[in-house]
C-alpha cells in the first residue's frame, strides 16, 4: 500500500504532473476531452496521492478504497493517475484511443487494471458506486467509495435516483465529488439547463454537502478528511472548478470540452505547466 501523506506542495506538484501527462496523451491521440480532465486534476491528485488506500501491485485487493469516474470522458485523467501510481507503465499512455489499446476513449474495467467501473455513459456511476458501498458494508469492510461526477451530468435523472438510494441506505462510506466547472458541450450549464442550487438539491436528498474551491489543494484535502468523519449519510463535495484549469488558452473555453490540443497548443501548455527546471 502506498504511504499517503498530507503534503500540500507535493500534491500540487502531482496535479501538475497529471496535467502534463493528460495533455501529452491527448495531443498524441489527436482527440479526447481536455477541459474536464484538467478541471478535476487537483481533486484526483488528492485522492490518489493522499486519500485512497490501494495496492497497484494487487488491483483487486478486497480492502482497497474504490474510485469511480462517473464522468468517464475524463479518462485521460484517470489513465494518467493510474500510470503514475504504478498500475501500468507510463509508456502505455501514448496508446490512448488507438486500436488495440486498453486505454479506450472511455474507461473499460475489463481492459485496464485500476479501472474499477466501465463508464462513459453519463449518470450511471453514482448508482454503481453506491452499489459498491452497500456491498462493502455487507462484507463488513471499512473501505470507502469515491465517485467523481461532472456538473452537466447532474442533468441525468438517474443521478437523483442514486442520490435518493444512497441516503435511504445511509451510505456514509460513499463520497461523491462534483466537478463544477460550469460548462457543458453546448455551452454554459446555466444557459443549457440550470442545475443550481446544487447544494440545496443534495441537502434535500439527505446528503451532507461540503463546498470548496476545487483547485485549492488544502481545501480539497480538508474536505476529503471531513467527509470521512461524517456518519449516517453520504457526503458530496461540491468542488467549484475552472474547465481547462492550468493552461490559460484552455481555461473557461467551451470548445475544449471534447477536443485535443494541437502540437502548437501543447508546446504553450507545457511551458505554462513547467516547474522552471525543465521538467
Amino acid at each position, binding site marked *: 500500500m502506498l504511504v499517503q501523506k498530507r503534503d500540500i506542495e507535493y500534491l500540487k506538484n502531482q496535479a501538475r504532473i497529471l496535467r502534463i501527462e493528460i495533455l501529452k496523451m491527448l495531443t498524441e491521440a489527436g482527440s479526447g476531452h481536455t477541459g474536464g480532465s484538467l478541471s478535476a486534476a487537483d481533486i484526483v491528485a488528492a485522492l490518489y496521492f493522499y486519500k485512497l488506500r490501494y495496492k497497484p501491485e494487487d488491483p483487486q485487493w478486497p480492502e482497497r478504497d474504490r474510485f469511480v469516474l462517473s464522468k468517464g470522458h475524463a479518462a485521460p485523467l484517470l489513465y494518467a493517475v493510474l500510470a503514475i501510481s504504478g498500475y501500468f507503465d507510463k509508456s502505455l499512455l501514448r496508446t490512448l484511443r488507438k486500436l488495440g489499446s486498453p486505454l479506450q476513449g472511455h474507461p473499460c474495467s475489463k481492459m485496464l487494471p485500476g479501472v474499477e467501473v466501465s463508464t462513459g455513459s453519463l449518470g*450511471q456511476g453514482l448508482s454503481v458506486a453506491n452499489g459498491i458501498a452497500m*456491498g462493502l458494508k455487507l*462484507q463488513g469492510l471499512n473501505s470507502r467509495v469515491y465517485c467523481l461526477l461532472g456538473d452537466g451530468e447532474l442533468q441525468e435523472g438517474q443521478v437523483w435516483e442514486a442520490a435518493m438510494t444512497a441516503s435511504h441506505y445511509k451510505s456514509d462510506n460513499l463520497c461523491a465529488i462534483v466537478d463544477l466547472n460550469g460548462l457543458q458541450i453546448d455551452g454554459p450549464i446555466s444557459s443549457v439547463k440550470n442545475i443550481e442550487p446544487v447544494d440545496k438539491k443534495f441537502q434535500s436528498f439527505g446528503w451532507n454537502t461540503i463546498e470548496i474551491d476545487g483547485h485549492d489543494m488544502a481545501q480539497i484535502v480538508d474536505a476529503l478528511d471531513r467527509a470521512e468523519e461524517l456518519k449516517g449519510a453520504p457526503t458530496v463535495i461540491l468542488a467549484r472548478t475552472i474547465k481547462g484549469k492550468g493552461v490559460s488558452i484552455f481555461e473557461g473555453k467551451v470548445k475544449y470540452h471534447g477536443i485535443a490540443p494541437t502540437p502548437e497548443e501543447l508546446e504553450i501548455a507545457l511551458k505554462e505547466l513547467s516547474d522552471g527546471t525543465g521538467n
Partner: protein
Amino acid sequence: MEQAIKSFCGLEAATRDAYGETLFRLGQENRDIVVLDADLSSSTKTSKFAKAFPDRFFNMGVSEQDMMATAAGLSLTGKIPFASTFAIFATGRAWEQIRQSIVYSHLNVKIVATHGGITVGEDGASHQAIEDIALMRVIPEMTVIVPADAYETELVIEEIVKFYGPVYVRLGRAKVKPVMPEDYRFQIGKAYAFRLGNDVNIIACGVMVKEALDAAEILKAKGIDTGVINMSTIKPLDEKMLLEAARAKLIVTAEEHSIIGGLGGAVSEYISSIRPRPILRIGIKDTFGCSGSSQELMRFFGLTSDQIASDIMKKWSELATKGAKPL
C-alpha cells in the same frame, strides 16, 4: 423460518412462483446472493427472500435504472445480485444501464424479470414486454434464458447462480402446465428435444412449449411428423440442435414475443446461414399487446395450439404444392 417448496417437478405453477421459492431456498445456502427489486417484490415474488433475509434485500423503489447500476456495484464486491422487476421495465427502461454498467464489464448480475409477454393480461400493452428477448439478445456477451415451466425455472435459477456472468431470465405472470420431464437437467446453451420430426420441427420457448407440444399432437393425427424442441437458452443458441432440427422440411418457431428479433429472429439468422429452409415464425406479429385475460389474449394473438397447428398445416400445404424436398 418458512419452508421452501422442494421441487416444482410436475407442478402447475407460474414461473415467477418457482423463482421466488428457489431464490428463497438458495438464499439460505448461499450468503452471497443479494436481491434488488423496484417496488414489485410481491409480483416478482422476491418478497419471500426479502422477508427471510432483509439485510440482503434492497428495495430500490420505482427506479429501474438505478437498480441495474446498483446491482453492478454490488457484484463488484463479490455478491451475486438478482435484480427483478417486470420485463418491460427491466429491459426497456434500463436497457442502457444493463449494457453499460453490467454487461460491458461482464459483471455477475442476474436479471430475472417477470411479466414477460402478453399473458400479463389485463394490464395491457404498457406492461406487456414483447420486445425484451430481442433487446437482451442484441447485447454482446449476454446470456438469455426463457424457461418453459416452473420446474425448468427452478433448475435455471440454480444453474445461473453457479455460472459467472450477466444473465437475463424471462418469466411469466400466469400459471403454466408442467412440460419438462423429471430427469431433465438444464444446461445453459443446451436445448431439449421432446422429439425430432421428419416433416416439421417446432422450436419453442416459454409458455409456447406447451402449445407446441399440443400442436404437434394435432399435426401427428393429420399425418405430419412433427418434432418439438424447447430452446430455453436463446443466447447462446444451441446450434448443434438446430442443425439436427433443420433436417425437417419446415422449421417453425413459437414464442410469446414479437416475431422480430426474438427466438424466431435468432433461429432464422442461424438456419439461413446453413441451409435453405422455410421458417414459419409464430409470435406477436409486429403489433402491441392489449388488455384481456391471458387465455383470451393467447387466442387473440393466434398463439394457441390449435391455431399454431392450423398455421403450420397451411404452410405445409403451400410447400407441398411447391414440391419441397428434404435435403
